[in-house]
């Protein structure tokens, strides 16, 4: 009898569950962690959508794209959140993404006119350091200094790829010379952002490649004002994180609603202090207190999305030969 009841309850629960549409969103790991934006956004969106929002976290942006390519059109995902500007060209090439009409009045340093992807947050790459040192003001000064830096490998990490693009965007054909100058400053190269940042916090390097917003984390979450980002006069390379809808989605309307939600105040006001990036649309209440202390680069650098793949290959070869000496 007990089993019958159990079976009946399970059955009822399943059928009740089936009435609620489910929206599956693939994203990167840190988005769904306890401190990431995932839990808050899930709760807020579910209050309005009468649906079940399911975040699936996997690795980083590159891992997301690889997963989509493996799954192809059979993917259960409706929405992919967390690809960035350096992956957009490769993502479009898969033909899995659907153009969207969702748009917003973006507060980005550049004009946004992509028809498939909606930006939800963005940041500038920067070298983060302790406030006890006087930072160099550009790559050349960094190369001439004896400061030690730790960076991420562009072959396994998106920030690492960002740095590659940064040097390329700022110096073009002179990039190899910059890298040769930097070679003796690089303590080591890590697999991903977490490893590099961990090494920096342990005192293994004076500076680490991260974001201009990283000091905001230390200031706001840890009340620690000893971290700062170095402002480089060549300009800072941008990373814009985007959300896109898959053509194979069985919930296209819900997917649009979610993407619209991501650029609404409800989501945008959560992102700065959970994802530690700038919101794509500044919410009505403005940026959280503490963000005004961050450096604001005078020049935003970004390689056009469709130029990234070819440039990446060239820059990677230059990087490898400069650092393998």
């Amino acid at each position, binding site marked *: 009898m007990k089993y019958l009841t159990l079976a009946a309850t399970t059955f009822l629960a399943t059928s009740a569950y089936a009435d609620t549409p489910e929206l599956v969103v693939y994203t*990167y*790991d*840190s988005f*769904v*962690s*306890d*401190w*990431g934006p995932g839990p808050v956004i899930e709760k807020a969106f579910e209050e309005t959508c009468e649906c079940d929002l*399911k*975040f*699936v*976290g*996997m*690795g980083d942006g*590159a*891992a997301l*794209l*690889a*997963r989509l*390519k*493996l*799954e192809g059109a*059979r993917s*259960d995902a409706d929405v992919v959140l967390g690809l960035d500007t350096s992956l957009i060209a*490769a993502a479009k090439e898969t033909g899995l993404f659907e153009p969207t009409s969702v748009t917003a009045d973006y507060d980005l340093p550049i004009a946004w006119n992509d028809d498939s992807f909606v930006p939800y947050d963005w940041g500038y790459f920067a070298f983060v350091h302790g406030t006890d040192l006087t930072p160099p003001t550009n790559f050349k000064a960094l190369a001439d200094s004896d400061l*030690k830096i730790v960076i991420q*490998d562009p*072959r*396994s990490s998106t920030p690492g*790829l960002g740095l590659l693009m940064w040097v390329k965007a700022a110096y073009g054909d002179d990039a190899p010379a910059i890298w040769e100058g930097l*070679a003796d400053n*690089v*303590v*080591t*190269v*890590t*697999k*991903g*952002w*977490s*490893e590099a*940042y*961990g*090494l920096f*916090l*342990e*005192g*293994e*390097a004076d500076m680490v490649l991260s974001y201009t917003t*990283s000091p905001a*984390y230390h200031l706001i*979450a840890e009340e620690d004002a000893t971290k700062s980002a170095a402002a480089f006069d060549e300009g800072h390379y941008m990373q814009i994180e985007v959300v896109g809808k898959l053509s194979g989605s069985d919930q296209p309307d819900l997917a649009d609603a979610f993407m619209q939600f991501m650029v609404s105040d409800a989501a945008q006001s959560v992102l700065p202090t*959970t994802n*530690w990036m700038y919101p794509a649309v500044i919410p009505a209440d403005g940026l959280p207190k503490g963000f005004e202390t961050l450096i604001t680069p005078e020049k935003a650098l970004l390689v056009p999305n469709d130029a990234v793949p070819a440039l990446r290959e060239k820059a990677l070869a230059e*990087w*490898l030969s400069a*650092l*393998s000496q």
Partner: protein
Amino acid sequence: MAFRPLAISTRTGASAAISVVALVFAALAAVASRAEFGSGLGSADWAAIRFTAMQALLSALISTLLAIPVARALARRRFWGRGVLVTLLGAPFILPVIVAVLGLLAVFGRAGWLNAGLSAIGMPTVSIYGLHGVVLAHVFFNLPLATRLLLQAWHTLPAERFRLAAQLNLTPRAVFLSLEWPMLRQIVPGVAALIFVICLTSFAVALTLGGGPRATTIELAIYQAFRFDFDLSRAALLSLVQLGLAGGAAVLALWIIPSVSLGGGRDRPLRRWDARGGWQRIPDILAIGTGAAFLLLPLCAVVWRGLLGLPATPTSVWLAAGTSIGVALTSVVILLALALPLAGWIASARQGGIEGVGLFGLAASPLMIGTGWFILINPVADPFALALPVTALVNALMGLPFVLRILVPPLRDTVQVYGRLSQSLGLQGWPLWRWVILPRLRPQIGFAAGLTGALSMGDLGVIALFADPDRTTLPLQMYRLMGSYQMEAASGAALILLGLSLGIFWAFDKGGRWHADA
């Protein structure tokens, strides 16, 4: 005369071997089936292959050679804290890579204790980054493992031999040459091959401590091929190279191993009359002291940081810990089901070459196995639902070569010593295992189960690839914390992981040694 010394069924052993090979090659075939062939291996790939082989070879040789004096000293001496030290030998091996690296850097890094000490006394500081750093880290991971494997072998030397040696008043040198050296010749090549294969799949350790792209390993190239280039043909080719190198090492090692039995004893408690006091203690004290310091200092750093981070650790970490324990125990069950028949088959065969099969599971890139099985599973079932079982399976595969290395030598002795008696009594099948093999192998089975459980706890495995949205394992949760700036909470999670892994290891190992003097 077709004489089989012991009636161990080859059928179950062979099917276990076939399953292992099939699991690996099905994954490889799946990856290859989705590949568009065309791109071969470039010069950068060959450089990666050379670097991988060289660092793995150095790491294997140094770990094994250094393990010999440490294991010998531990086998000869009884002292307070020996049991704890022997258990802790399992620790570095099971730590998540990034945690171990941070622990090592706390001691040997630019801002580490060693350099702080050196600059305090006016000496120039040293840099850990480079090939020597890679080897140092791999020795940190594998020296304890090698020591444990050798120690296990030392304990299989029959007590009667040492009694006889004492009666003949043999010098320690003569004891070494007549008793210990023949045993070492049987064990050392296999241990070295195993460590070589472990180091073949190194990625984050080699890159971080190697100090840059010079230290590119095959595994990094595979990762890049899967993640950034989505070049499946290159991924499959590189995986094949990795398997080839491992296969080569296995063949070489098993070919060196002489197939002689050390003879049986009557399982008396071991006493070492040859390990006298006085000046003879000094090398043993040195070996144990240096080994323990090298092992314990980075561990202390991990524990200290973990204690500081423990209050910041969220409840989700404990939930993940529960999942991880489940995965670990499942791995142990799968592993024993594969390893026992396989070990039985290997031990009763005349050639030991089959043991190489076990290495395939370890040599194959976890990313390749995960991706391959993802391609296979995705069309027929929900990969999310299978995330935990597949993780447990892959972790068990990774543990297989260790377990074979642990089980095969004593099983071979059992076969040679008790084979005739068992056969004349008509023992075969389950009763044979029940009455002859299992009781004699209990310490080894306990050790093997403990090692696999701990390894499975600490390994990120393929769970990240299958991404079960509702359940995460502890290592994955730890990486997620790090990715959200929560380095402190991550340290706390690492400590919990270390504690649980050691707990599992200790429980199985202790269970195996219950009432056995080993």
